[in-house]
């Protein structure tokens, strides 16, 4: 069973969404609905499932409905139709009290512009989730202090958010989200407001943290490179519709439509594709053409950017092996050139 399952979600913004619903279900276009009724279609029949312990990246341009989608998971927004199952419970059926309890226990959120409380110190900010849960004062201080250390902000506990730089503020946001030890972490364009260097640093920090914590993370971004770097699975939204869901390689190699193609066009493929994706399998490979002297062994999860220099330099063949060292397949310059050719 998936951790989070979203089934046929529709979201219509406007004064009378239920009345417009039949029209939208009949397949009227976004523009037509806007013109006829003044309602905006935010999400159109979105279904996806997110597995426990993975980073699911939801990507799209602004206005594609990705922020709306993530807010359905903790029900900051109610869907017009459809269901959101978290741990097999339909979030939309919870009453006022249950939803508060659910938000406290199950998930927390990181925001694009950090969403820190300007009137609270860093340590009070980090401890906010615990304060809401009415954890005793000394205990929540201890936990908050631990989280602050984990994101490398020791010594800033008693500063106010406005005294910190953007990158540091977002670390506070991350520490605050982790302080309640949630099962699910929702990150709404969490790194988009940071400059490129800090952003890349934060991405690495998130990957490191995730390796230890194994949370289920739903990450929203408009940046394809970011989504390819972080995502175990990626969902691409366009105008409120989910266009494609898949592993990063699938998105790169088989873009579902022109919109995804346009996204993928300028991606550095060698940073995304892994050896096991492009290799020729053992049984199909004609071994006679290789010189045994120039064979290198590489793990199947290696990104091909690490292989390219080797292959280019001595025309060598790469032997792809799995974790146990069993040979799975081979890569030569032929495989590389096919994999790196852009599809148009």
């Amino acid at each position, binding site marked *: 069973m998936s951790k989070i399952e979203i089934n046929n979600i529709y979201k219509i913004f406007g004064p009378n969404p239920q009345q417009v619903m039949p029209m939208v279900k009949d397949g009227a276009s976004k523009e037509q609905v806007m013109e006829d009724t003044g309602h905006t279609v935010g999400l159109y029949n979105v279904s996806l499932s997110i597995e426990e312990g993975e980073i699911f990246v939801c990507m799209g341009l602004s206005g594609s409905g990705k922020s709306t989608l993530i807010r359905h998971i903790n029900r900051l927004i109610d869907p017009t139709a459809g269901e959101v199952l978290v741990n097999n419970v339909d979030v939309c059926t919870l009453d006022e009290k249950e939803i508060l309890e659910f938000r406290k226990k199950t998930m927390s959120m990181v925001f694009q512009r950090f969403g820190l409380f300007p009137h609270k110190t860093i340590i009070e900010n980090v401890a906010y989730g615990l*304060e809401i849960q009415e954890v005793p004062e000394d205990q929540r201080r201890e936990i908050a202090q631990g989280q602050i250390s984990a994101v490398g902000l020791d010594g800033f506990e008693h500063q106010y958010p406005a005294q910190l730089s953007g990158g540091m503020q977002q670390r506070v946001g991350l520490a605050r989200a982790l302080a309640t030890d949630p099962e699910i972490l929702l990150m709404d364009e969490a790194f988009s407001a940071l400059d490129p260097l800090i952003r890349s640093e934060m991405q690495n920090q998130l990957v490191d943290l995730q390796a230890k914590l194994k949370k289920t993370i739903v990450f929203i971004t408009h940046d394809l490179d970011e989504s390819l770097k972080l995502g175990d699975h990626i969902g691409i939204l366009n105008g409120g519709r989910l266009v494609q869901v898949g592993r990063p390689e699938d998105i790169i190699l088989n873009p579902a439509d022109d919109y995804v193609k346009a996204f993928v066009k300028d991606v550095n493929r060698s940073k995304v594709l892994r050896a096991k994706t492009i290799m020729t399998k053992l049984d199909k490979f004609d071994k006679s053409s290789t010189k045994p002297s120039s064979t290198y062994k590489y793990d199947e999860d290696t990104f091909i950017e690490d292989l390219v220099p080797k292959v280019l330099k001595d025309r060598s063949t790469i032997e792809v092996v799995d974790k146990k060292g069993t040979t799975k397949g081979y890569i030569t310059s032929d495989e590389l050139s096919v994999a790196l050719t852009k599809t148009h």
Partner: protein
Amino acid sequence: MWALFLNRISIMIRKFLTYFTFPIIFVWLLVVSYNSSKRKPDSVMELLTDPSWLYDWPKWLDIPLMKWINDGFKVFNEKYGIYFEVINDFLLGAILSLKKFLIVLPWPVVIALVVAIVFFSSGRKVGTTVFVGICTFFIGFLHPKFWDKAIETTSIMIIGILICIVIGIPLGIAMARNNKLRNAILPVLDLMQTIPSFCYLIPGIMLFGLGAVPAIIATVIYAVPPLVRLTDLGITLVDTEVIEAAEAFGASKRQKLLGVQLPLALPNIMQGINQCTMMALAMVVIASMIGTRGLGDEVLLGLQQLNVGKATEAGLAIVLLAIVLDRITQAYGKKIQDRNQPPK
């Protein structure tokens, strides 16, 4: 298909109603006016070219508001007069005891108290403190008689402002939470701010008699709107992402209000209290016309005796009092704001 069709029809009918209801009423009024007009034109040509039948406002088109209010007020006074007496006694008691307390204090103690309050509420700013101390001293220095008068005015104002806070802040909070309530209350606030003060001073006298109590009621009516507006504005202006952050951690409405919205709206609320104070002081002179004693009384006397010097002196004393009260309320608001947005 049928559902879609019916849906479209109902949307069209709604549009038609919104656009045409008022024009239809307008045309109907024109027709009735024509029928009841004495000067009926002889031909259609004359009807169109000579609009003299529309010169006079039709006599029957008149809402008998005056009669309703007079009757209503009379019944109201007879039925509920007893309650007003209770309110009257309570308020008068409050003012008298506050005044007695302040007058019994030796004047240097009062000045010292004011200085101490300013010093701590402004975050230990020496310049402001000294300035306010000098202003306080000058009230008595202008004319020894003014000291007691100023204390009398201040005690009326303190009670008035306390009532404003008790009414204004909860009302502002309620407005920020509920759009319908806001739409209902905003015109009432407009009315309170634009209606000439004598319109409620006179009924006030009829309910409470001459003296300090109707002055307080008038002060509250006149001074509460800015506080309500600024409380509402302050809460509405709190960053939506910060609110979402609180919600995402499962904060209940109460936790959100007390922990996030009110503290962040506090600079605006303090500004509201400041405005409230200034407007209450402006009311002091007008209220003296219904027999309220205090500094306004002196201005009125000066005017009646054509004693320009006396009126100006008393006017100056009011300005000084205004400065003192303004600095106290302003300084506190600024202190909070500085903490939320420290200078870069």
